[in-house]
């Protein structure tokens, strides 16, 4: 009995040591320029092939942590904040801008002006080089073609009696809808923006968990019209669902729609800075903007030299809200406080 137990203990001890050694060797990593850790909030379906291409072209191994808009926790942003003590990520590839600016304001980024940023317009990048925007989505109105013949042309139409109870938006506390709300506060001023949101609420606009749900519910006919993003709306059209979309507020005196670029940034004190810079250069290359434009996500290139497929709207043809993203980001909290009071009863 005794012997049996001590033999077993020995086996455990050996196995345990082996496991620890494995953990240690597997865990150790130094910056030999051959590995880069990227956190990305852009859907895996779009980001994975691009990162695979980078790996194939450069031989640098890419380790990715993906997020999903469905978590509602802006998981990776909170992860980067929580990992502040020992940063693990090198690059954060965000699918929007406001949260990247939060990271900058918390002192978690370091500036890096890639040679590729030159071609991007000043309003889509940080003045101090902390982040750079590329490949944008836009906010659009989606409508069910079986149920709607004359779609609304403006987000203000959602406050009209004819769409009462038939329009849906995502909860403006999360994701691009939150960014859109903050942009409206920045663009219209607090009073006008608050009035718009109160009118929407008074007109029984349904508040759904996310933009993808808005798309699905409109395509299913649960709601006739909704507000969502180009990538979501285009997916429904490509799938042959009875849905179509348009850019809102394109008239002469109207505010235009909001463009929301991807943004990429370098994490402060990151473990592999050299490989990280190469990845950032690659992500800002025309090649990537073309790839993202071609795919289902139909992201609109910001680099004027990039020629996207004809089906992708060109940036100069869209009337866009002229917002300063730093100003927008500074509005996020006040806007969220208002929305929380009004829209979560």
């Amino acid at each position, binding site marked *: 009995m005794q012997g049996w137990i001590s033999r077993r203990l020995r086996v455990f001890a050996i196995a345990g040591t082996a496991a620890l050694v494995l953990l240690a060797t597997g865990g150790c990593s130094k910056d030999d320029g051959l590995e880069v850790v990227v956190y990305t909030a852009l859907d895996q379906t779009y980001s994975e092939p691009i990162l695979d291409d980078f790996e194939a072209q450069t031989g640098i191994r890419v380790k990715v942590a993906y997020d999903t808009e469905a978590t509602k926790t802006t998981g990776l942003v909170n992860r980067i904040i929580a990992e502040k003590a020992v940063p*693990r990520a090198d690059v954060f590839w965000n699918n929007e801008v406001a949260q990247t600016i939060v990271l900058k304001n918390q002192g978690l980024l370091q500036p890096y002006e890639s040679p590729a940023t030159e071609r991007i317009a000043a309003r889509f990048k940080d003045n101090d080089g902390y982040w750079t925007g590329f490949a944008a989505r836009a906010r659009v109105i989606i409508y069910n073609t079986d149920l709607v013949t004359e779609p609304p042309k403006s987000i203000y139409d959602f406050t009209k009696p004819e769409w009462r109870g038939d329009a849906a938006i995502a909860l403006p506390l999360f994701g691009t809808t939150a960014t859109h709300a903050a942009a409206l506060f920045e663009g219209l001023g607090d009073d006008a923006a608050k009035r718009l949101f109160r009118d929407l609420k008074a007109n029984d606009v349904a508040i759904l968990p996310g933009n993808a749900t808005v798309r*699905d519910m409109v395509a299913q*006919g649960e709601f006739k019209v909704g507000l969502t993003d180009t990538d979501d709306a285009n997916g429904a059209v490509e799938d042959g669902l009875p849905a179509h979309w348009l850019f809102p507020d394109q008239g002469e005196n109207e505010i235009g729609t909001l463009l929301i670029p991807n943004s990429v940034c370098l994490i402060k004190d990151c473990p592999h800075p050299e490989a990280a810079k190469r990845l950032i250069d690659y992500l800002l290359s025309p090649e990537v903007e073309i790839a993202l434009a071609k795919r289902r996500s139909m992201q609109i290139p910001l680099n004027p030299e990039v020629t996207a497929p004809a089906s992708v709207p060109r940036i100069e043809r869209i009337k866009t809200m002229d917002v300063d993203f730093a100003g927008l980001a500074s509005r996020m909290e006040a806007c969220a406080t208002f929305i929380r009071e009004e829209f979560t009863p």
Partner: protein
Amino acid sequence: MTSLDRRAKALLLAGVLAFLAVALAPVAWMLATCLMAEPAAPFAPFADVLTSPRQWALFQGSLILAAFTATGAMAMGAALAYVVTRIAVPGRGTWTALLMVPLVVPPYVFALAWLDLLGRRGPLNAALTELLGTDAPPLNVYSLAGAAFVMSLCHFPIVFLTTRAALNSIDARFEEAGRLFAGDRRTFFGITLRQAAPGCLAGGLLVFVLALAEFGVPSLLCVPVYTIEVFTKFSAFYDTPGATATAAPLLCVSLLALYLCNRCMRGARRPAWSGQARHVPPGRGRIRRGLGLAACAVAVAGSVVAPVAVLMKRAGALGTYVRAIETAWDELIHSLVTAALAATAMALLALVVAYAARRLRPRAGNALDWAALASLAVPGTVLGVGLIGLWNRPGLLGLVYETVGILLLAYVARFFAVAHKGLETAIDRLDPGLEEAAAASGVSWWRGFIWIVAPLLAPAFAAVWLLTFILCLGELNAAVLVCPPGYTTLSVRIFTLMHYGMNELVAALAVILVMCTVLPLVLLGPLARRIATPRKASAP
């Protein structure tokens, strides 16, 4: 008290310490960070928790939703557990396997499938509108009742499993004696129901806690719930201490529910297993069998066939399944392996911890029970940030943080309460006299444990393993925070695909998950039953 030798005591103590380090530490860390955020005013993060009428309304909504969900799940789960253990319906193993299905489908995907059926323009409303000749659709799934209905259907298998384990463990002689002297009805209420109640209540409590922390389903059905306050703190204000403080009421209510459960159970904690325990033979009356069969059929039709049919319709052609597997093969393997490892570790650890607590220090056992529930009651995000705070540091801890080990730790921490609760109720029903008799006959504690205790606990162990395995598969919020880069889990993949609008792939993956769970259960069912049947205990 049984006389345990020193090595056994050391093992049990090590188990308890491991539990404290793995399961309790992250939440304790978060609470500590929350209190230390402003040392001058430690309760500052709590300043705006439950202060406005709006928050109270949200909180009330959550409580009502969780209470209805738990009640619905208990009614359904307990009734079905009774049917499959006490009535000789044909194909009991298959029914049991089928009733597990709702657990496997992520609640959000499950709710989407129900929206197809119950939505404003869904087939059920269309049929009812025609039948009743009304204008407005008569069923409104976008309501508290709708959400409670869908969530009860998602969660009832938890109660079903725990109650079934309890019913299976009742010694046949109790019921036989009862029937002889007091008749069927009194036996049912006085013995069967009473002995099964701890299992049923434990399941109900877990459902209540899970429903309280749920965010996806209520928000899809436009039912405002309190968890949104926690998520808002995280994603709109990046205020981790605030989010932790905001989650405190959820924690308090869960602990209160545990206290009430324990109070209700005070009289029921009595040993029920003796050495010659055997199964109660199922009833064979024709009416009972007919009713039992009908109950199974209705439950399976409503909670399995209908939603799975919707998912299969969405998935469409066979090619979609192939594509789904191609797209998510790595993630599927990652998730199956990590969930299986975590479930095994969790069940073993819970076995040691629950046994140690019950046999060495029953009072300390209650404290552990409370502690375990804490990690389940706070949203996964809070737990995830706590794990990062604890493990992401230079040195040995950081090495673990870089590996899959951290994901296992997250799973164990999150669902330990489920394993602990399940095994604790089983151990409570174990007669210490058995172990004492073995010890008195000179059998070492180890052999007694392996040959007497372990076989008697096997059904509960199996149920706990399955339950925690499935819960780990679906875990999302903590996984997103701690998954090592380069290692994605299936839950994250499913939600990305859903956002991408690949609903047919999501549906196909859900169906594949269902098949992955149901087929082994159906095929291995007879084998598992043979293993799980409490044997005549005898020291070899």
